[in-house]
């Protein structure tokens, strides 16, 4: 399973992901995927630098899968984080969030 690295931005706490160009993005779809353990380690090393530079806090890698080309963060918790909002839909039963 590929991994992405996620964190919260230091200044406002918003959920972000390490992107392919080395920036931090709010869009999980733009997150850089690490396919191997080495690649994940490289992402984490890059994230550690961002922590030292005070861009982000609370960094961790998480497993995702690709479904129809879209990144699915697997757990309910991570889907809620990736959505950047609370689940206010009335039809939440039917939406496997």
């Amino acid at each position, binding site marked *: 399973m590929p991994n992405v690295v996620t964190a919260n931005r*230091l200044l*406002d706490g918003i*959920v972000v992901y390490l992107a392919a160009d080395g920036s931090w993005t709010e869009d999980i779809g733009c997150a850089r995927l690490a396919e191997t353990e080495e690649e994940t380690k490289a992402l984490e090393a890059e994230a550690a630098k961002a922590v030292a530079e005070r861009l982000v806090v609370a960094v961790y890698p998480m497993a995702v899968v690709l479904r129809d080309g879209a990144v699915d963060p697997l*757990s309910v918790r991570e889907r809620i984080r990736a959505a950047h909002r*609370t689940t206010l839909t009335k039809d939440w*039963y039917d939406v496997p969030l």
Partner: protein
Amino acid sequence: MYRYDEFDHAFVHERVAQFREQVERRLLGKLTEDEFRPLRLRNGLYLQLHAYMLRIAIPYGVLSPRQLRQLAMIGRRWDRGYGHFTTRQNLQFNWVKLVDVPDILSALAEVEMHCIQTSGNCVRNVTADPFAGAAHDELEDPRPWCEILRQWSTLHPEFSWLPRKFKIAISGAAEDRAAIAFHDIGLKIVRGPDGKNGFRVFVGGGMGRTPYVGQEIRPFLAKEHLLSYIESILRVYNLHGRRDNLNKARIKILVNQLGIDKFRADVEADWEATRKDAIDLPQDERRRIMSYFAPPNLSPRPIRDDAVDQRRITDPVFANWLKHNVRPHQVPGYASVVISLKEPGRTPGDASSDQMDFAADLAERYSRNEARVNYTQNLILPHVARSDLVSVYEELKAEGLATGNYDLLGDMICCPGLDYCNLANARSIPIAKEIAKRFEDPARQELIGPLRLNMSGCINACGHHHSGNIGILGVDKKGTELYQISLGGSPKDDAAVGTIIGPGFRAEAVPQAIDTIISTYLANRNDGEDFLATWRRVGAAPFKEALYGVA
């Protein structure tokens, strides 16, 4: 209500300046996150799932219109236009930016508010009967004692690093509306053998992973000894409470491990040894604090009001609101009005900035400049003339705040859950909304009668699920949200921890399970029996059978 003196103002402003500097140092890299975290937590600032969350203390749930308006302004200017009232009578903003927090704290200080000790292993916001100073069944107003404890516990040097957080609640009325049995220390004002009021003291209650009902440590404590006696309880806990295991560090574990008799003996021994040297509250200071809580000058008025009586007959929805959300007052011709934050379809306990402003207006015009928050996440106008009830109702109704469900099934306690909280394992808000939808019909809630339904999204039990007549606990089972249901809890004088009724339910099955439980209660109840009484008489068997098909 209490007003800051020069010392209070200076102290709170100093704290704001201190935190402003700490944030600056964090942003300049002079503090790491590990160094900064305990500092921000001491100021009520958490990092949650989506953003920072700021928890603002509302001491014993009392708010002035000016304070409510300032909270509304903060919500609008620095958050997303709404806040969440909590089971500690506090307010949480869910989307604040770290860089804005010093300015928010400064805005709070302007209206005599702060976030000190809303987190951390210290004495937290002292809670109280939300009808304090108004309730018809009150022996004595607990608020001055809450204020005394607030001042005494703020930055108390001996008790700033307790093994774990510490919660105190005080009730001065016959009925317990502050859940004192579920607190580290619960105080009930009672009349003593000499005819003077004092405190009945309970210790070791709590929710969380290991729920306990508090036990009586002292049947009567004279008022003048309150601080020295509480110090002794805290000292014994501070010395002997476990610090090796977060889950076993609360005082309830110590009390139950030692046994209440041994714990009491230790406290009494400490008290005998230290009370002579302890600084009890000077009489002048006590009188000064008491004077802020003088009852508003309400002259008795006629108990009956023609407009109210007329409307009651012609409008069943008004009659329902009158019956449940209008509570008796100690002065004839007055009432306390509960503003329900539980309209079906809304997040329980949330209020928009506009609604806060609106409640402030009502408090100013109808309730002697006072509003309250209760631990079941509603707002209260404590002092309303009965002749104003129709007007108040009309205004509330226009704002969607006249739902007549106080202490009925729709008046659920619900924690933020996995929609917001970093600790949560499951969502609670959507479940609460679905249950509210299922039981939307006021006639059905009326038929069911008083019922406390409490829900938490994790074992930490911020949503008080253990004390719900029906309790729902969200857990994570292999990546799926699962909900355990417990029955028979009570937060009142007959406090009890609920019993888990059987295997948990998936989210979509929870409303039907609650429906089944309610139907079983209705089928089994005797005349006049509420849910709890029926549960206590018939036991778990009929409920298990209805839910799982086996007795």
